[in-house]
């Protein structure tokens, strides 16, 4: 048996315990601090920046909503904005069709247990491991009009009439970039859809088969409704990604959205306003850039939230 403690040491022990208990509140501090300083603060700061006039990166006077007004009414800013905005929409739509649509079909094929499904998964996923800059540069070489592999392959197949200066022609440049983006992202989509398919209880398929549903009816009546969460994830991710599209465009076409702004996206335009001095030496670029950032931020958050809400409700209804 331990000897009885005198009151002094009891107090000491209690204090020690209290201190020990209190230290637990230090645990989330490092994460909160780093995340707060380098993620939350800059986004809030960007909002306040948009209300000021800027000389280079030095803040001038408060100008209210002038930057927003200029962005939407003053040429060339407003023209460039809507031009880039349209490209972002196209980015989203084509990715939904060619990346997510194909990814779902491929996931379904793998799910149907073809031979070599492990190999297929790895193959689709492989491009995702490369840095986006590597992806952009690699495809820039492949799409080169003179020595690039694509045009050479077309020639070997006797399809010379399809040869193009893929990235030099305003009609094909943006679409080429988007398809490269699909090449990069398809494996991720396949894995998400596959995980969704595998989470469907087997009994449902058996029940469906007994009812005579197979093939397409099975997909429509049983698989699609149960895949709503996967579609939701992919749509939101694709939406955010296509409205933030920057790296791949920058790698393949630089910061000017060449040729003739035909590959401009909002993020590229934003980068030019903030760093590239596209405003022709005008000192309002950071203000305008921040205004653009705020608009884009609100747009992305609004539609993401709306979509998530809508889909959640739909899921409950079903």
């Amino acid at each position, binding site marked *: 048996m331990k000897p009885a403690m005198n009151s002094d040491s009891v107090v000491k022990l209690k204090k020690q315990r209290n201190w020990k208990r209190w230290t637990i509140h230090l645990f989330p501090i490092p994460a909160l601090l780093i*995340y707060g300083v380098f993620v939350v603060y800059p986004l809030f700061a960007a909002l306040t920046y948009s209300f000021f006039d800027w000389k280079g990166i030095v803040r001038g006077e408060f100008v209210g909503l002038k930057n927003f007004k200029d962005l939407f009414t003053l040429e060339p800013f407003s023209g460039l904005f809507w031009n880039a905005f349209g490209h972002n929409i196209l980015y989203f739509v084509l990715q939904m069709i060619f990346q997510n649509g194909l990814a779902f079909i491929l996931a379904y094929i793998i799910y149907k247990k073809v031979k070599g499904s492990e190999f297929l998964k790895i193959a689709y996923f492989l491009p995702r491991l490369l840095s986006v*800059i590597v992806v952009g540069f690699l495809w820039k070489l492949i799409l080169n009009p003179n020595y690039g592999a694509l045009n050479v392959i077309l020639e070997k197949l006797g399809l010379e009439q399809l040869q193009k200066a893929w990235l030099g022609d305003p009609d094909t440049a943006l679409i080429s970039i988007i398809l490269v983006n699909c090449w990069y992202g398809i494996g991720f989509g396949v894995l998400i859809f596959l995980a969704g398919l595998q989470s469907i209880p087997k009994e449902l398929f058996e029940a469906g088969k007994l009812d005579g549903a197979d093939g397409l009816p099975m997909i429509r009546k049983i698989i699609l409704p149960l895949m709503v969460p996967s579609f939701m994830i992919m749509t939101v991710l694709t939406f955010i990604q296509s409205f933030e599209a920057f*790296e791949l465009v920058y790698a393949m076409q630089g910061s000017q959205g060449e040729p003739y702004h035909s590959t401009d996206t909002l993020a590229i335009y934003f980068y030019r306003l903030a760093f590239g001095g596209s405003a022709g030496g005008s000192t309002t670029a950071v203000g305008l850039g921040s205004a653009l950032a705020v608009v884009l931020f609100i747009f992305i958050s609004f539609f993401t939230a709306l979509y998530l809400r809508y889909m959640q409700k739909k899921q409950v209804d079903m």
Partner: protein
Amino acid sequence: MNHTIWTRPFYYVFAFLIASISIYPILLMILSSFKTSAEIFTSPLALPKTFNLDTYRNLLEIIPFTTYFMNSVFVSVVSVLLILITSSLAAFYIARFTYVWNNVIFFFFLMGMMLPIKLGIVPLFILMKDLNLLNSLWSLIFMYVATGIPLSILILTGFFRTMPRELEEAARIDGAGNLRILWNVVLPLMRPALGTVMIIQFIQSWNDFFFPLIFITDDLKKTIPVGMLSLFGEYSADWGALFAGLTLASLPMIVLFFIASKQFMEGLTQGAIK
């Protein structure tokens, strides 16, 4: 229904056709890296005549690739370590204690997964300038830790909540402090979740190109992705060197992937589904 008779072969043809489109460009990149530029221009699709390493030797002479590589390793390793430490501390707090503000903190972190951080790049640039971190690898480390924390906390908190508390309580009765419990009792059981976080964050910080593009201009402080930018800017006619550079930039990740392809694929999708 007789559609199954023809759907199977169609499935195969289609699936393997897309697979070859996925693989072929990467294969082309690796094969071309062994060719001289002249060889690439005259016969772009042919196999290399010899598998010699001349293009690689040439590449290492024209750009400081070893420096880029060491910078990338340093940034990625330190970032991942700091993410693991900060996120497991925070996730432990959120999952294991029930203070009123815990849900608020959790939500605050989760919000970060939806925030398009690139839109805050101007304030970030000014912040890094004020902190004297421009042209420092620490600017990148801070960014990767800060942007990696939300998803890591989400994954770790989810995992913590599925774990039984008995062991921790036993340790607590034995008089172990919180830090001791986390380090000796909880973390060893968390290996799968920590592995997932590690893989996701390593790929992220190794491949990122946006932040070094803005923060780093000193050639000796560049990571591999921005190093590629200078390679393509200065030696755009030397296709042998370009392909060698792209191959060398991608090789570490591809090798790691083939060592642990399952963990890679599970890790990245888990991040999205949770």
